[in-house]
Structure formats: structure tokens, C-alpha cells
């Protein structure tokens, strides 16, 4: 929509991706300061940022934002098992959300796409955790996680939707999608 050349456009994308990454990292750190009733239960605000990146920039950028955010958090915690746990949750979540948004965005509204991402997050994370501690029965812990994940996913999806509307226009228009 702008007359700007491709180089400027690329620069703009890189800057926006960096901004989203910084934002995701910041909310990730901030929300880890809030005590949660059960381990593994969290609001997942970083996933909301990834969903915004997915809608406003594209699937590739959403993956970049998520991967960079996970590795930045790893620098903060420094534990390789925590890294595996974060990756095991965040990567399936972004993959599912990208797929659903890419294929079914006419049929699914953002809160439900976010809920599906939360489910993928819970499933991936519990799989990684039960593999790391070598105990399959941990997998039953997915039930309380799914309950919390559905609520949290819905809330963050709603948040992401309103952010995308503010940034991208009335119909979730892309601010910079190729």
C-alpha cells in the first residue's frame, strides 16, 4: 500500500519482528513473576504476542518471534531441560495456530485459534516433561492443564484480537503481510 521499495519494506518487517520479540520476552518474564496455583499453569501472554505476529506479519515471523523468545528466556533461566520444556510447548502451539489461521481463518475466530494453540502447548509440554523424567503417568496431569489452558487461551486470543484490530484495522488487516 506504500510506494516504498522492497528494501524499506524488509527493514520494516525486521524491525517489527524485533519489536514483537522484545514484547514477547518482556511479557514472558513479567508473567513468570506471578504465582500460579498449579505448576505449568500460566496465562501465556507470550503466545498472544506470537498470535499477533502471525496475524499482522505472517507465519514465518510468528515462528521467529517464538523461537527467539524461548532462547532469550533460556538465557535468563539457563537450564537445558527448561529450554526443552518451553520449546516442546511453544513450537507446536505456533505450528497449530499458523496452520489454523492459514487454512481456516474464515471459519475460526482468533480466541478459538488461540485455544487450539493452548491445547497444542499443553500436549507438547506434557509430552516433553514425561519424556525428561521418564514417567508416562505424568501425562494425566494434562487434564488440569487443559482446563486452565482453554480459559487462558481464550483470554489471550481475545486480547490478541483487539490488539490486531487496533494495529491493523477493523478487519484484522495486515499491517505488513506479504
Amino acid at each position: 500500500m506504500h510506494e516504498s521499495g522492497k528494501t524499506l519494506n524488509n527493514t520494516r518487517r525486521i524491525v517489527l519482528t524485533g519489536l514483537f520479540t522484545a514484547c514477547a520476552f518482556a511479557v514472558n518474564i513479567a508473567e513468570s513473576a506471578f504465582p500460579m496455583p498449579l505448576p505449568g499453569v500460566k496465562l501465556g501472554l507470550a503466545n498472544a504476542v506470537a498470535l499477533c505476529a502471525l496475524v499482522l506479519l505472517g507465519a514465518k515471523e510468528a515462528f521467529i518471534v517464538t523461537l527467539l523468545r524461548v532462547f532469550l528466556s533460556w538465557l535468563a533461566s539457563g537450564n537445558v531441560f527448561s529450554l526443552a520444556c518451553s520449546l516442546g510447548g511453544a513450537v507446536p502451539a505456533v505450528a497449530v495456530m499458523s496452520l489454523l489461521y492459514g487454512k481456516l481463518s474464515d471459519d475460526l475466530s482468533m480466541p478459538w485459534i488461540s485455544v487450539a494453540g493452548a491445547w497444542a502447548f499443553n500436549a507438547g509440554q506434557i509430552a516433553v516433561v514425561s519424556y525428561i523424567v521418564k514417567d508416562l503417568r505424568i501425562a494425566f496431569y494434562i487434564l488440569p492443564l487443559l482446563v486452565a489452558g482453554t480459559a487462558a487461551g481464550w483470554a489471550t486470543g481475545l486480547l490478541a484480537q483487539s490488539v490486531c484490530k487496533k494495529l491493523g484495522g477493523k478487519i484484522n488487516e495486515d499491517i505488513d503481510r506479504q
Partner: protein
Amino acid sequence: MKRGDRIMALITGAGALMMAAGLLMRGPENTASARTAEIVVGGQVLHQIALNGRPREIRVETPEGFNIIKTDGRGAAVISADCPDGSCIRMGRITRPGTSAVCLPHRLLLRIRDKRGNGEVDSVTW
């Protein structure tokens, strides 16, 4: 509401109903039977402690750090650890056979088993 939204809402509703049914069918907490707390690090069982009422505190050193586990007649809990997230401590005391508390950074698992050696699959803490 879009078509896919309705499908997703239906899946969520069905899942919620199934979980509610599972919660209702769950038996009363059985602390009378003989239970053991197991401490597992990296897939290896390090300690097996009978939950027979005598309080015990065990300090476990893992390659990544330490955890202190307290057991008594009611259950077992991780009461202290030097891991960055502390989720094993937030899990609180676990009592039912089949439940566990995980310290992921240390690859440590604390789980309750009953006398048969297996946790009942129905028992999940929420």
C-alpha cells in the same frame, strides 16, 4: 459465531462434561492403604520411603542442584530446591497414588505409589 467456533465450543463442552464425570466418579481419598513415596532422578529410583507416619526429610543432590523432600503419614512434598522455577514446591503435598511432583530443571520426580506398586490411573490432582 463462525462455523468452526461452534465446532470448537462443542469439543470444549464435551471435554468439560467428560472431566466433570471423571471428577464425580473419583473415589474418596484413600490414605489408609500402604503407600510409598518414590524419588526418581533421570529415570533412576533413588529412594523409596514408606508413608507410615514418621516424618522424614531427605536431601537429594542432583547434577543440577538439590531438592529437599519431606514425607509424613499424609503424603510427600518438595519443601525446598535451588531450581529457578520452583514448580516442584508449588505442587504442594501429594497424597494420592499415581500423583507426582516434578522438578524439571533437576529431572527429579517425586511420586506416590500404593502397595501394588502401581498408581491408580484415575487419580490426578487438580
